[in-house]
């Protein structure tokens, strides 16, 4: 049951009535009875919200920050329903529309569109559709709710895709698809071509030159069909917020750029998100399926406040890799955690594979270290310096152990990781 402003006005008019016309118990009774009767009649005449039938159609997934539209189809088998309709979603689904106005004559069907801009990654489930049906007199009405299931998946935004074209261009240079004047980057023999002035003379294939009679050059290209495993740490190290998003989100962004790049380079990319258990696992999808499957798998991964078990990471990676491959670990450079739980178990990985550890650095630490004002600033600078020194020491330890470390602030982590990958490829370390 709901009342409207008209019922309030009627009751207020009743006060005037009692004051001026019938200042007695009878007058009060008349007012109460009048309001009750009018409201009751209106409620009885209002169309039933319960009998409405609903179904949905529209977007199933949307990139975080973009707008999705979900339609609601309403069929009315009963009396005319007039009033308001609220399509309720959780707050982070970002519903843009205010409650819809509804006027649905008997036997008809309407389509209402709810626009959503999710503010957080992950699955958002529609909560309820609540209909308030006001009677023909406009004094009172009925209200009822329906559960109309729908799930909208907010995918990782992949903001770093703007860096992809420039990296692809560099990849093409490596690949020899553009005119190359330097000796082939890579160790895999590709083809022979004629010498062009300016080419590195060390690349001349003398035997072929002798056979053909003109100077022939060997070209090389980087290895293809290598395995790349991207491991995202979804444990507590990734929960910390850097800038305006958790480390995990920056890590995902970097992982997506790397995956796109490596796929174009002809490598097979797998994904693993892991803390104390495996949260997402994508194994060697088809090249055209890499980004969609990664984005889908990562949509619902949230940072858990547990310590990541790197033994799981190592065993999972070893299990799926035979040949020499690239293992990219996206985690945090926390000396205590890395030294105690990663370094003791990373041996088997290092023996067989190239390991790259990428961490999102916090620009706040740089700010803290540069701050000079009052005493707390100086202590803050000292504390930040200590943190950085610890990280530097850890980086040195890791590098000595054979791990390539990329430690960059959120804006640079994705391109830096891509560049490191290209550098490894160029150096023929894969």
């Amino acid at each position, binding site marked *: 049951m709901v009342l409207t402003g008209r019922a309030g006005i009627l009751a207020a008019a009743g006060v005037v009535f009692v004051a001026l016309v019938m200042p007695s118990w009878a007058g009060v009774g008349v007012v109460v009875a009048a309001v009750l009767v009018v409201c009751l009649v209106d409620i009885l005449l209002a169309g039933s919200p319960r009998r409405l039938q609903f179904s949905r159609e529209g977007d199933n997934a949307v990139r975080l920050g973009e707008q999705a539209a979900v339609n609601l189809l309403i069929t009315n088998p009963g009396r005319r329903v007039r009033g308001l309709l609220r399509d309720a979603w959780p707050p982070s689904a970002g519903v843009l529309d205010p409650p819809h106005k509804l006027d649905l004559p008997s036997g008809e069907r309407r389509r209402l569109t709810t626009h959503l801009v999710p503010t957080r990654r992950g699955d958002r489930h529609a909560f309820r559709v609540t209909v308030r049906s006001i009677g023909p007199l406009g004094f009172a009405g009925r209200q009822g709710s329906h559960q109309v299931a729908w799930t909208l998946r907010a995918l990782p935004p992949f903001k770093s895709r703007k860096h992809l074209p420039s990296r692809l261009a560099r990849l093409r240079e490596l690949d020899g698809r553009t005119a190359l004047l330097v000796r082939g980057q890579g160790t895999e023999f590709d083809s022979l071509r004629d010498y062009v002035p300016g080419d590195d003379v060390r690349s001349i294939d003398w035997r072929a030159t002798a056979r053909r009679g003109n100077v022939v050059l060997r070209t090389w290209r980087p290895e293809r069909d290598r395995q790349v495993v991207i491991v995202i740490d979804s444990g507590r190290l990734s929960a910390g*917020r850097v800038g305006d998003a958790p480390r995990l989100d920056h890590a995902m962004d970097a992982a997506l750029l790397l995956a796109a790049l490596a796929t174009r380079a002809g490598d097979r990319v797998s994904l693993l998100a892991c803390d104390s258990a495996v949260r997402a696992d994508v194994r060697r999808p088809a090249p055209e399926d890499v980004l969609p499957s990664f984005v889908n798998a990562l949509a619902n991964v949230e940072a858990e406040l547990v310590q990541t078990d790197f033994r799981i990471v190592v065993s999972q990676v070893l299990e799926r890799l035979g040949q020499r491959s690239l293992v990219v670990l996206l985690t945090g450079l926390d000396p205590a955690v890395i030294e105690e739980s990663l370094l003791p178990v990373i041996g088997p990985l290092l023996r067989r594979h190239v390991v790259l550890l990428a961490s999102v650095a916090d620009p706040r630490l740089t700010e803290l270290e540069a701050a000079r004002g009052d005493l*707390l600033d100086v202590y803050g600078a000292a504390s930040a310096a200590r943190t950085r020194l610890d990280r530097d020491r850890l980086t040195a330890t890791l590098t000595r152990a054979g791990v390539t470390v990329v430690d960059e602030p959120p804006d640079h982590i994705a391109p830096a990781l891509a560049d490191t990958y290209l550098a490894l490829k160029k150096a023929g370390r894969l």
Partner: protein
Amino acid sequence: MSTSVGRSVGESWRALRTPLLITGFVVLAAIVVLIATSARTSGQFSPDSTESTGARALAALLEDHNVDVHGTESLNDAVQAGGGSTLLIGPGGSLDDGDWRRIAQAQWSHIILIRPGSRALEALAPGVRPTGNSLATRSRQPGCELPAAVKAGTVTVNGPTYSAPEGATTCYGDGINNTVVRLEVGDRLVDVIGTPGSFMNARLADDGNAALALNLLGTHQDLTWYLPQWESDYPDSDGESSAQLIPPDVRYIAWALAFAVLVVAIWRGRRLGPVVAERLPVIVHAAETTEGRARLYRRSRARDRAASALRESALGQLHEAHGIPRRADPSAVVATVAARTGRDPAMLYELLYGLPPLTDAALMSLSQELDVLTQEVRHP
């Protein structure tokens, strides 16, 4: 596909249960408080007051001896007597002759007047007159035949004294100026007591005060302990009269208004569906631990740790800028940096490897000097 969502009776009951319980509890608590405070009295000689001028101790003693003490500040309680009960009238108050007469007409079998004025004496103890006031506090012998006083023995006395008519028993005095007077008016016993101080919490334990009080007050099972107030409370000054001053129309308008408010409350209070709850992930600033450590440094005044971190950081930058090997010993570092910057080697050594600063100001200046040094290195 859709399913209608509604609340079953059980769900409604579960949702309403807690608010109902809380409301019930509040109402119950209010009633209990009202009952508990309705019999409360306060001020001098009050049976509920634990201050030194109160008489809670005496009331408690009486309760221990199976006397029901009923404290009141209302004249109505003092004029509605049951037979075979005692009325104690405390000192002070501003009752007029009419009030005293009404008390006298009530069916009390024993009335005890504590430091009464002349109006009270006129109405309740005819023939007794105030004779003076003994300002000094002293112990006195009973000096009379009254069994209550004889058993109690010596009593601390202070306050007005009274003369007694023929046939009355006088105690704690010289026959003319007496502190305790007992007389019979009709078939009623009337005690006039001039020394309230002896029965207050502060001095009840002295001499035989407690015994005298128990003997005098404990004659009956029921004791009404009336403390006269400074305003006369006639029934016509009660709350009812103020209700009568309001014209009856206003009452109906008020009821109609209350109904209108209820209607508006229902109109505004109904939500369009429930609030949607959501489980949010925990988000902590990544730099939180570093900032926390900075506050810990400051709280524990860890200047040594802070200084060593700053020095190590500066040294790292110097190593990088001058290409000094990491493991170079301090004198070599100082010599190289001194050669490049033209600074005094001793001062430089003190700056980079000296003792930890002893004051916060020294730490601040150390950080500034290190800044200057690293700046010089970066932009020579």
